[in-house]
């Protein structure tokens, strides 16, 4: 069943699907980063996949990983279908030279914050993200803490307050109050 879905996906997207396998926890699909948005949209809307819940977005920095990977960074999307009960993991590799992917916040509302966290921790740029701003660290913070070349003992002194007016302006315009 799952194998049929994976075949269907690679038939449809052809070269965009680099590899797919059924790992021990869930099927893993590796695709190229340009078609991430289209593939995720398809997996959300297609009746056989029906992945309505975006469980998580995260990234991995393979800089010090002993096994050589295609690129330094990997985006990881965890998808889940509440009706069919199946899960998928979609991965896309990114190099340091072009650290950007399309934002999927139009597809799932939760992607907004999850992508902000990935941006904060890894510095991956999400194109067309409505509000790409640091979320867990401070606005003055320099660097991206979960990168493997960020030393764990590095400390920064951060003082200013975030007025949040920039976000509020956007929100007011969105709500038609300004």
């Amino acid at each position, binding site marked *: 069943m799952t194998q049929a879905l994976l075949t269907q996906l690679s038939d449809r997207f052809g070269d965009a699907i680099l590899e797919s396998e059924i790992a021990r926890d869930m099927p893993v699909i590796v695709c190229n980063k340009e078609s991430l948005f289209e593939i995720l949209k398809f997996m959300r809307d297609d009746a056989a996949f029906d992945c309505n819940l975006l469980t998580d977005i995260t990234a991995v920095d393979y800089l010090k990983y002993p096994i050589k990977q295609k690129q330094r960074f990997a985006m990881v999307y965890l998808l889940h279908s509440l009706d069919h009960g199946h899960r998928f993991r979609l991965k896309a590799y990114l190099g340091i030279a072009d650290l950007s992917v399309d934002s999927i916040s139009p597809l799932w*509302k939760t992607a907004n*914050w999850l992508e902000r966290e990935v941006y904060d921790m890894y510095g991956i740029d999400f194109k067309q993200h409505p509000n790409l701003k640091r979320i867990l*660290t401070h606005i003055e913070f320099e660097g991206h*803490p*979960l990168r493997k070349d960020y030393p764990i003992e590095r400390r920064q002194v951060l003082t200013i307050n975030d007025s949040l007016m920039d976000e509020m302006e956007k929100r007011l315009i969105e709500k038609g*109050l300004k």
Partner: protein
Amino acid sequence: MQRVGQMHPVAQDFEPEFYKDLHTDLMFLNMGPSHPASHGTLRSFVALDGETIMAAVLEIGYLHRGFEKTVEHRTYDQVIPYTDRLNYVSSIMNNVGFSKAVEALIGVEVPPRCQYLRVIISEMMRIVDHLVCIGANLVDIGALTNFWYLFNKREIFYDILDKLTGARLTNSFTRIGGLARDAYDGFEDDIKSVLKEFEIAVLDVSKLCKRNKIFLNRTVDVGIISAEDAISYGFTGPCLRGSGVPYDVRKESPYYFYDTFDFEIPVGENGDTYDRIMVRFEEIKQSIRIVRQALKTLPGGPVNSDDKRVSLPPKSESYLNIEGLINHFKHIYEGVKVEPGEYYDCTEAANGELGFFIVSDGTGTPYRVRCRPPCFTIFSAYPDMIEGSLIADAVATLGSINIIAGELER
């Protein structure tokens, strides 16, 4: 205006017509980060029209401790105390979630007694988490009495935890491949008696609330989130079930004998604060059922896996022969060795799906641990839930989605 102009000045105040030409502006207000009703250091910045919230934005990160960065520099067993601090109201559930993920990554199975004990304590922690959530939520809307009823009973369970694990709040009770220690003599009777106390607490508070007009006015149709929005926002746990979606990891992909227990998944209808509170009440009852069934069939035997990869050798070996000593030393200093690979595993924690995505590189320390906290996705929906409602309703809504800052910001 003509008519209003003829009225007495005091009476004019009540006529909306009087304010028609008055130029009013939105007022901006910070709620939090440090405020008793904000349940931790959460800052919401709201634009108010009178007492109505017109727009809201959030700032989080006040409790960010770099959990994910820190654990990349610790051995797998050393991570467990850090997981305590995620959802510190139900810390053992996080211990179980992490240990289970690592065990699944390595491919060891823990003995049945360990699985049963993990179920029993997890369900007890779920009850406690819900008691705290309901109690604090009721305090937020002015019903202080209930808080004492619920927290007194929680205290009794914390004494049991003290006896069992040696700590009240941050228990660190699990180990990779088992538990820190077996249950003490009389543990089962203690649990049985505290279950009765919990039942009394739930009954007392339900009686006080269920048909209480003030309670209904404050919670019904407050902070509504539709099932569609809840799924789009990645809700899981009681908040998703409150919106009417019966998703529960324990039913969908049962782990630890959950398929052998008889229990139900309560769901709400409207997705308002009332539904979320009532779903939690019902889940407490279901958890009590699970614990009773688990206690009846609690098997004997060891609590730690005998797999040499994950478990310490028995003390008789580590003290008396060199292989045992080396085994012990390597295990403590280098950690549990995990083959290179990646694995996502999730458990149903008190707030929803608690997932751990672990990438290992063959050493004793994880290469990357991603904690998927249920709170994070839920809290991102908070502005949508409170916009258009009153400030007081925002407080009630915040209580009902049970945001734990330790887990939200890691």
